[in-house]
């Protein structure tokens, strides 16, 4: 683990944008955790005397159309958004990759298992063929509007990605000699999958996680924006943008633009982290990057340092 951490730092140094990604994600997490300490006002209490105040010393990011402090709301919001996105993504990766592992392991040969895995793959096709957003709204409409439903929507929408990813990994790992050895050794299929197949197939799944958390935040905000996600007084970026967007035309930009910018930066940060994990877990990509960096340093005449 220590060497992984060292590698992470080296990668961050070679590619400054990875550093930016880590910094963004770290500060968003920190702000979300420390929100009750930092926030000058309650995120849900309206001060009806001071609505639509422009940014000032009293209200750093101004107030919205019912008089709630935008700074306080904007730093409370990631608590909801991140929780939903992380839970949804974790749920989808657990569901998707475990089904994908089984489908990949049993999906060839003959018999009922093949038909079953064929059916599962076509069901995943159907799921993915729907526009994600329409599918999520349909899910919220049929299950009722709540945070749990949004988590479920994210889980369902992303599950086929993990299913496919895991299946393709398992297909190649399944025929590896060490998997055959484990079967000869008398281990059950379940034990073989848990012991050998999944650990060796996990790398790209981990890289996908961070990217999907970013998407999950966007989806949460989008659902809330159209009123299908988190409801208004709860601090959440999407619903904040929705509350304020009518005032933008009349010149009061801050109720929408501030949460919008924070949303964009956060998603950007998670994408960068995802990209860096991809480098971290893919040995060939990693080698390429490290050798590039070495070359560049060599050209600049700076002595090479070995880690």
């Amino acid at each position: 683990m220590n060497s992984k951490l060292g590698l992470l730092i080296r990668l961050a140094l070679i590619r400054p944008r990875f550093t930016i990604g880590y910094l963004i994600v770290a500060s968003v997490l920190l702000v979300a955790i420390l929100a009750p300490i930092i926030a000058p006002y309650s995120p849900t209490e309206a001060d009806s005397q001071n609505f639509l105040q422009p940014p000032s010393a009293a209200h750093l990011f101004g107030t919205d159309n019912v008089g709630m402090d935008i700074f306080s709301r904007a730093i409370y919001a990631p608590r909801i958004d991140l929780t939903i996105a992380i839970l949804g993504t974790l749920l989808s990766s657990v569901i998707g990759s475990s089904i994908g592992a089984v489908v990949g392991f049993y999906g060839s040969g003959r018999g009922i298992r093949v038909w079953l895995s064929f059916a599962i793959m076509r069901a995943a096709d159907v799921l993915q063929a729907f526009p994600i957003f329409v599918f999520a709204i349909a899910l919220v409409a049929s299950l009722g509007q709540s945070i749990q439903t949004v988590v479920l929507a994210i889980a369902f929408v992303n599950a086929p990605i993990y299913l496919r990813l895991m299946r393709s990994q398992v297909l190649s790992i399944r025929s590896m000699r060490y998997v055959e050895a484990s079967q000869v050794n008398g281990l059950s299929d379940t034990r073989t999958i848990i012991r050998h197949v999944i650990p060796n197939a996990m790398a790209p799944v981990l890289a996908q996680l961070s990217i999907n958390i970013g998407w999950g935040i966007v989806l949460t905000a989008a659902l809330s924006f159209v009123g299908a996600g988190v409801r208004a007084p709860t601090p959440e970026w999407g619903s904040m943008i929705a509350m304020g967007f009518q005032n933008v035309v009349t010149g009061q930009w801050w109720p929408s633009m501030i949460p919008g910018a924070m949303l964009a930066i956060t998603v950007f940060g998670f994408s960068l982290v995802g990209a860096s994990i991809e480098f971290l877990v893919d040995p060939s990509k990693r080698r390429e990057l490290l050798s590039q960096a070495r070359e560049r340093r060599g050209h600049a005449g700076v002595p090479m340092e070995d880690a």
Partner: protein
Amino acid sequence: MSTVLTIDNLYKHFPIAGSKQVVQAINGVSLTIEPGETLGLVGESGSGKTTVGRCIVGLIEPSAGTIHFRDADLALRQRHKRELAGKIQLVFQEPNESLDPRRKIGDTISEPLLPLRLDRETRRRRTADALRLVRLQPDLLDAYPSELSSGQQQRVGIARAMVTEPELVVLDEPTSALDPTARAEIIDLLRRIQSERHTAYLFISHDLSTVRFISHRVAVMYLGMIVEQGSAETVFNRPQHPYSSGLLSSVMLPHPHLKIESSVSLKGEIPSPINLPKGCFLASRCPFVIDRCRHEMPPAETVGERHTVHCFRHKDVAASVPASDTFNVFMKEAERILGRTVPSGVKPSLHQPTT
């Protein structure tokens, strides 16, 4: 002690996806292995020798025929699960791919012990014993496969196979991915283990000089059939099947004065296992061919003690080649050179089955 493994008239046909045709990988293989004996299974690539090995360890279901381990029918592997656990083991050709890159060596070696329901302490002790058996340093237990050389990796593969003290080990070309030094060490190791534990081996290989070195008996495979089977000494010194003879003449011994005399040279291409000819599979390539060969499959003929041949003209084949002792000379020479590493008393002599 009774026979360890009995294969009777084994067939394996693989269906081709999107076609009604099948690949006829094994076409009626019968063989037996006695306790403490090494049977060398030789043949060129695609002759079905690996498929036989995989049927024995249960990675492939045979299409027809039976495999018995002692008295247990391996078609009912699940029913005999308890008594069979750890009795038949496999060593792979590719040492690197046969070890999980994310598991420590100790973990890999102890894996076959898991279904045996032993306590932790026993598992640890037997894992350490197995590591010592293959002469690896105890500190390698915590290493990962990528930190090992391929010779060491193959030792780990052997330790994993031996940790359950199996009665039969299928060695699927265990030395062909190794350099000559590592190969000699592995062969020496296998022979030492056999002499200590009386383990039976099925040694699958296309490397005939290695096979001669380790085997008591030899079975020559061609297109899914065993064309000749007998003691290593007789098959190597006086082959009675044109294919064995041709195969032997293709061997180059690593010694300038040693040459294998043979008048048999096989012409043409090996027939496709999808579309096998009627009669003897070798008829189109055989210099001894007669009309009968093209219509009739030669039956197994017993030509000596535990020596069978599938050839109508085996007498002529035997007579055409001067009985040569080349391999024996080579082995003596090799033993002399390896004198220090090969323990005395482990000569691969003709095995006499106890009945």
